């Protein structure tokens, strides 16, 4: 059975079968939120993922980074996972090189902050970003970084993107959106996506990218054919196999029950 699963995944990847990707309102909402970041304000991409969810969270991070570079929005990455810090830095650096963007001018990495420190940091960040963040990825005080000179309080942040496999959205809502109404977008792994529908419905988040599927939809809006788009076909065929197996399993179960009752 595992072999069959591998076959239905490998075939669309090798044959490059692209199935249609329909952009959901949640992904369009996230895209529009990035477009609407006011000039003079920056976006913050919060990275809490590690290598375990790289297939879902990295394409989401890369799609957001690419969009911000493309639309001229400045952004800061802040990582609450040591692996995620490095992986997000590698991704953003590669895209920055490709799109000729400069560290410190167009983007910055606020470095790794321990996840246990998330709540205290979110309580101090709105009042004094320079003090709350301290030093960036390279150990430079953030106040000395050109794009951060005028970014001092939460009023200078136009959007926060939470890219995460964990239940961190509620923390951002509680301590940032709930008090300061800073727009939020949510990029969770698919397993965490159900947590996002209530805040989405209540308007607490502007949009959501559900796992790899959400990243593929975002890539479509960007007119790109990166990893998530290439993998979307394999995701669909693997789902078809699972559905077929569930149907077969139920047919087997019902027929064996009938045989027993006879």
């Amino acid at each position, binding site marked *: 059975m*595992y072999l069959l*699963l*591998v076959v239905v*995944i*490998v075939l669309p*990847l*090798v044959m*490059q079968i692209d199935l249609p990707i329909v952009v959901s309102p949640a992904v369009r909402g996230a895209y529009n939120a990035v477009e609407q970041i006011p000039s003079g304000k920056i976006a913050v991409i919060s990275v809490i993922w*590690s290598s*375990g*969810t*790289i*297939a*879902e969270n990295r394409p989401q991070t890369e799609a957001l980074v690419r969009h911000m570079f493309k639309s001229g929005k400045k952004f800061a990455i802040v990582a609450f996972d*040591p*692996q995620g*810090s490095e992986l997000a830095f590698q991704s953003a650096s590669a895209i920055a090189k490709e799109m000729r963007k400069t560290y410190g001018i167009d983007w910055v990495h606020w*470095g*790794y*902050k*321990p996840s246990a420190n998330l*709540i205290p940091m979110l*309580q101090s960040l709105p009042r004094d970003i320079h003090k709350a963040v*301290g*030093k960036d990825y390279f*150990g430079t005080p953030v106040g000395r970084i050109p794009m951060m000179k005028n970014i001092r309080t939460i009023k200078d942040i136009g959007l926060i993107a939470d890219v995460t496999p964990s239940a961190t959205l*509620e*923390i951002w*809502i*509680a*301590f940032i*959106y*709930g*008090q300061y109404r800073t727009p939020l977008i949510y990029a969770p*792994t*698919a*397993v*965490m*996506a*159900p947590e996002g529908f*209530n*805040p989405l*419905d*209540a*308007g*607490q988040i502007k949009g959501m990218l*559900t*796992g*790899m*599927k959400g990243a593929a939809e975002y890539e479509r809006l960007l007119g790109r054919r990166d*990893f998530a788009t*290439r*993998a979307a076909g*394999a*995701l669909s065929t*693997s*789902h078809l196999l*699972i559905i077929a197996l569930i149907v077969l399993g139920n047919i087997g179960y019902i027929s064996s029950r009938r045989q027993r009752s006879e």
Partner: protein
Amino acid sequence: MDILRHNITWDTATIWLSALGTLAIYSVLYKENPVYRLAEHIFIGAAAGYGVYYAWTQILKPLWWDRITGGNWVWIFALLAGAMFYFIYSQKHSWISRLIFGGLLGLISGAAFKAFAGINMDRISASFKPLYVHSPNMTTIESISASLNNVLFVLILLTVMAYFFFSFEHKSTIRRAPANIGRWVLMFAFGAMFGSTVMARMSLLIGRIYFILHDVLRIG
């Protein structure tokens, strides 16, 4: 050998090491085996070691050690406060750990109270939806569709709340029927959540297979 020396770069070696690691971990699908266990232990050890390295270089050294060695000796108290947690292992002096745990719990409780309003007030007010939606810039179909959505939302909200109403037994049909509907819609929700979980797991598998095909074998 010269060809090998020239072609095997650091990147290639990393990619092949990653590929071997991936295959070793997936070998557990066949059965539990020493190769899988070795790869698992290497991964856990490497991740833990990396975490310690990162915690020291990015947090403890710049924010604590450098401050102390720079003359700001007040930061020594952070070490004392942190050390208090470890008294939990001493039967005689465990009261010392309770002091710091108590302080921490107080801070967390305060933050949780503050968080409650921030999270829930918007959601409560958003759950009061109009059952008939109409505006001049909406077509009739859009208006019907939005109204139906809201009716469905309110119906599900009320029936699910009825299911979790345990103050009296659901004996009469009037009380039992909404609770039953609530139970059914909860099952639909759990099914959808399970579907999301399947999608997440498939995505991770696709990620690894794509890596083997694209980065290692250069196919696709």
